[in-house]
């Protein structure tokens, strides 16, 4: 038996989480280094996956399969396609940066009388817990990108809520305008809202998972897809539609799609910046990934049936998210609404059912992860310096901290999809792919690029330019640790903007497969069709 690479990629952070949590309370720094080391090790394993993955080869590669719950045919079945392996790469890449950026986020408060009041002293070790939880999330996210058994995927999809819940509810920004008490309340509210929204989505999905088992008699993605393709498994139209809706609802909550988005600004606003990145750049991607893998593959007919409505909702998300971002006063909530707009693009690309749209959507997931990480982490550095999330509390930062301002601007330019940076490639592909099938949606969505410029540049102007505010005076520029976090992300944004071919080569075959699953062909160019 060959080395179980996929299991190892998930097992390493899982074991790392346990080990980190077990580090004695006094050795906080050791726990941090251990977590960082584990995340880098996971990145190495993910890189090996990328190298060993053959773009032209079988659909699912590096597969593993073991019986798990025999009574129901639940198997521990893993495999990656181009989309999965790209997203595992993204996850493994971002976690070390998230850990490094959050290096001091869970240190005990030095100034206040005792440790953070939400944790009883002694029983809970916040620092170890913080990093252990991040690794736990990584393990589950990676495994969910690998799972080809529907039930296994479902378990992971739900289970990752638990560490996320504690990360959001337990660790917030240090200084809060309304005091510690109010901050704790708002954090709890955000965490519970996150949990309940996603639990409800998950429960509906559970019903659909059970329904699928009843109809298909199997949880194996491969078996069901093969049976559907060969015609041996027939689903009544209504059954398929109901099952599709059950799955889609859960993914749309997680992604999130308008109008199920309202938990995201709360969660991203209250969580620390690195955790906010974890939510939007990593965990939420499971939702859009699952739309591609499960909705389109298992329920192709129902997917096509629902497409017009979903595309409209996605367009609403794009415009609505962007407009709300314009209206925000809180830096982190602004980024959250921008993300909602971007998730609209991803979902629109997936359901446009064109090669460009789906390749674009997959690239978008990766690029959005990197660009949001760059913007949000720098925003976090900024917030940690001043102790406020309000845009109006800043002004003139560029003058005192030019490097911070410069990196913030680049993160912002990536968010507004400036050509030359990675997000442009994916956004344009999504727009072109949508336009060729739904011209009206494509045109309306293009308005999003104007609005994106508006919220990014207004944010930059209000925080970074103008006269230097008194509270901003003396603000230190980026430290070495912070620069080490941001610089590689920016480098990657530029590289993937100029030369995305390595990524498209991996993604294209998977998209071709998905297109054949839904039996859709790209519309022909008009001039060619006429010939």
């Amino acid at each position, binding site marked *: 038996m060959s080395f179980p690479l996929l299991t190892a990629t998930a097992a390493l952070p899982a074991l790392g989480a346990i080990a980190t949590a077990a580090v004695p309370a006094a050795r906080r720094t050791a726990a941090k280094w251990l977590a960082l080391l584990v995340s880098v090790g996971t990145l190495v394993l993910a890189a090996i996956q990328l190298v060993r993955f053959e773009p032209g080869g079988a659909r699912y590669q590096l597969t593993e399969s073991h019986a798990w719950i025999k009574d129901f045919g639940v198997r521990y079945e893993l495999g990656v396609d181009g989309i999965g392996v790209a997203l595992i790469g993204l996850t493994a890449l971002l976690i070390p940066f998230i850990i490094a950026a959050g290096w001091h986020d869970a240190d005990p408060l030095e100034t206040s009388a005792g440790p953070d009041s939400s944790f009883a002293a002694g029983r809970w070790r916040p620092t170890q817990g913080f990093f252990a939880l991040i690794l736990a999330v990584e393990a589950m996210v990676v495994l969910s990108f690998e799972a080809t058994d529907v039930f296994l995927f479902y378990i992971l999809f739900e289970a990752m809520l638990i560490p996320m819940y504690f990360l959001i*509810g337990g660790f917030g920004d240090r200084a809060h305008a309304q005091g510690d008490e109010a901050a704790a*309340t708002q954090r*709890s*509210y955000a965490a*519970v809202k996150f*949990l*309940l929204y996603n*639990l*409800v989505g*998950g*429960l509906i999905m*559970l019903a659909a998972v*059970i329904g699928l088992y009843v109809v298909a008699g199997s949880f194996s993605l491969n078996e069901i897809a093969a049976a559907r393709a060969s015609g041996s498994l027939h689903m009544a139209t209504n059954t398929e539609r109901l099952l599709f809706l059950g799955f889609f609802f859960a993914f749309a909550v997680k992604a999130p799609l*308008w*109008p199920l*988005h*309202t938990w995201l600004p709360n969660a991203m606003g209250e969580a620390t910046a690195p955790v906010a990145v974890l939510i939007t750049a990593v965990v939420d991607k499971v939702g859009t990934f699952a739309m591609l893998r499960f909705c389109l593959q298992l329920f192709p007919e129902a997917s096509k049936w629902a497409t017009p409505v979903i595309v409209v909702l996605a367009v609403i998300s794009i415009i*609505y998210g962007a*407009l*709300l971002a*314009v*209206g*925000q006063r809180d830096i982190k909530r602004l980024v959250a609404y921008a993300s909602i707009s971007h998730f609209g693009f991803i979902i629109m690309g997936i359901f446009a059912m*064109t*090669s*460009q749209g789906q390749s*674009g959507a997959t690239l978008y997931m990766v690029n959005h992860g990197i660009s949001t990480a760059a913007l949000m982490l720098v925003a976090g550095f900024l917030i940690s310096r001043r102790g406020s999330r309000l845009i109006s509390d800043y002004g003139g930062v*560029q003058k005192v901290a030019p490097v911070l301002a*410069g990196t913030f601007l680049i993160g912002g330019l990536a968010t507004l999809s*400036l*050509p*030359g940076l990675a997000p442009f490639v994916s956004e*344009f*592909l999504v*727009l*072109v792919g949508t*336009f*060729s099938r739904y011209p009206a949606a494509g045109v309306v969505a*293009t308005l999003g*690029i*104007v609005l994106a*410029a*508006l919220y990014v*540049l207004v944010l930059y102007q209000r925080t*970074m*330019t*103008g*006269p230097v505010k008194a509270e901003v005076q003396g603000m230190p520029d980026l430290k070495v640790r912070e620069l080490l976090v941001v610089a590689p992300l920016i480098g990657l944004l530029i590289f993937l903007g100029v*030369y995305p*071919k390595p990524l*498209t080569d991996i993604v294209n075959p998977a*998209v*071709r497969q998905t*297109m054949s699953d839904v039996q859709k062909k790209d519309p022909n*160019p*008009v*001039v*060619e069709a*006429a*010939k």
Partner: protein
Amino acid sequence: MDNLIALLIAAPLLGAAVLLCGGRKLDKAGHWLGTLLAGASFVIGAVLFVDMLGRSADHRTVTKHLFSWIPVEGFQADVGFQLDQLSMTFVLLITGVGTLIHIYSIGYMEHDENRRRFFGYLNLFLAAMLLLVLADNYLLLYVGWEGVGLASYLLIGFWQHKPSAATAAKKAFLVNRVGDMGLSIAIMVMFTTFGSFAFSTVLGETGGASSGRNTAIGLMLLLAACGKSAQVPLQSWLGDAMEGPTPVSALIHAATMVTAGVYLITRSGAIFNAVPDVQTVVVIVGTVTLLFGAIVGCAKDDIKKALAGSTMSQIGYMVLATGLGPIGYVFAIMHLVTHGFFKAGLFLGAGSVMHGMNDEVDMRRYGGLRKYMPVTFVTFGLGYLAIIGFPGLSGFFSKDKIIEAAFAKGGTEGWILGAVTLLGAAITAYYMTRVMVMTFFGEERWKHAKTPAPDQPGVEPAAQTHGAHDEPHPHESPKSMTIPMIVLAFGSVFAGGIFGIGDRFVKWLEPVTSFDHGNSPVAEWTVTAATIVCLLIGVGLAVAQYGRKPVPAVAPRGSLLTRAARRDLLQDDFNHVVLVRGGEHLTRSLVYLDHSLVDGVVNGTAASVGGLSGRLRKLQNGFARSYAVSMFGGAVVIIAATLLMRAV
């Protein structure tokens, strides 16, 4: 030889990377490095030009495929370059004027602590602009298109600590993004129509597409051009863009970037030629802007804003010419090049004046400066004569040709367009003479001048003094600044003659843009005579108004039109009321609705199922313990469901 094309862009790009990433250590040498690389780019351009001249007219296009950029099923985007006579013209203009302005900036920005960054941005601009004109497909052109927008944003807002500069930069980027949306949609239509957006495919197969699709592409390209070239209705950013340092105004907002729209339309000539209706729209846009810019130019007291109005108006001439089709393309580009020389020269002259006048921009506080700044006076004067079309100078050749082409359009339209372009020539002569007289002649109004309070009525907000409040001591600028001005003055004087006599420029560009004489109902000499008469009327009026009488230090209230023109013909007020205020109301109400309605409805729906809302409200009120209950509840549900399934 074709490898040099990539090097042309790489040189300034390298400069930008080094200057922007390099630390303070580079402060001492940064400006030299930036200037050297701009110069290197010009030398490479010159080598390529000589090489091109060595080949026959039909074999001058060079293409270079660099790498496959975005390879996706059914979608092929490449990084490839196309150097033909049209892009060659731009390459020489961009790198030539660009290098001169780098040299000028060494002196102009000498005391700025961020000079290194300034040169980094300038180099970035050169790289993006070269990419724009060298791309062999529309998507890569788009990269350059937004790239120059970024450079423009960074440079307008270079003095970020000034709120007005930061606002102007943001405005420029946003208005340009509206135009970019047009380019983006145009590319999408091209893709669905031709399956490609390479120049060769799109422009070669235009005939195969329906006129509806060509119309859509043409209109969207025009929208893009309006944004970048500050044409009505997207012109509002250019005046504010004067917040940037003056060398920036000269290079980006006069000579090169703002003319990108003219390049885009000329490059896409095949599409526009196929849809005459769109051409009519192009002509209308050009004509309206021509008058709009000229009127605004007459009313401004800020020397840079007056010149900005003029830029808008002159680009209006070019856009009008491109709308005429093959009669006009060549002359649009010819005017673009000569305009590049004299307008860059005028801006550099204005910068030189400001340099000697404590950064004062209000012409009402200039006067009689010719004695103190002889070089600036002579070079500015030559640029002035060139722009008003004084016989024998550059503007005379290029603008005259556009006026002739307007008549040659034929029919009633031809007469209307001809008359408007003549009127424009008269107004141009008027406002430029006004600038000239107010600045260099008459009483020395800066002596004992008090700086008016910014909130004093009648004073433009932009005309506040930025500099010291002492009485200025006008003086000539250093050599690094005057030499570029002298070189550009040579261009202003001779370029038109070199291009125009013997139809050299027509023969040079014809293989790319094609050319058609048209049937002018008016003889050539009549047009020339009419132009000269218009010129004299304009000059005469301005001299009578500003030369014969003393210029009041504070602008008189003026007629309704004057007051409107001072406010950019109220377009900004319209934008403010409709877009800014309206937008604020929209986003504010959406923020409210998102909280109360969307959140409320979703929570409420859930509440009717599981009491979610009540539990959430409790938590918000501080019942911290109940979240543990919620959590436990969730876990129980999961376990129960799993068990339930076992039982199925």
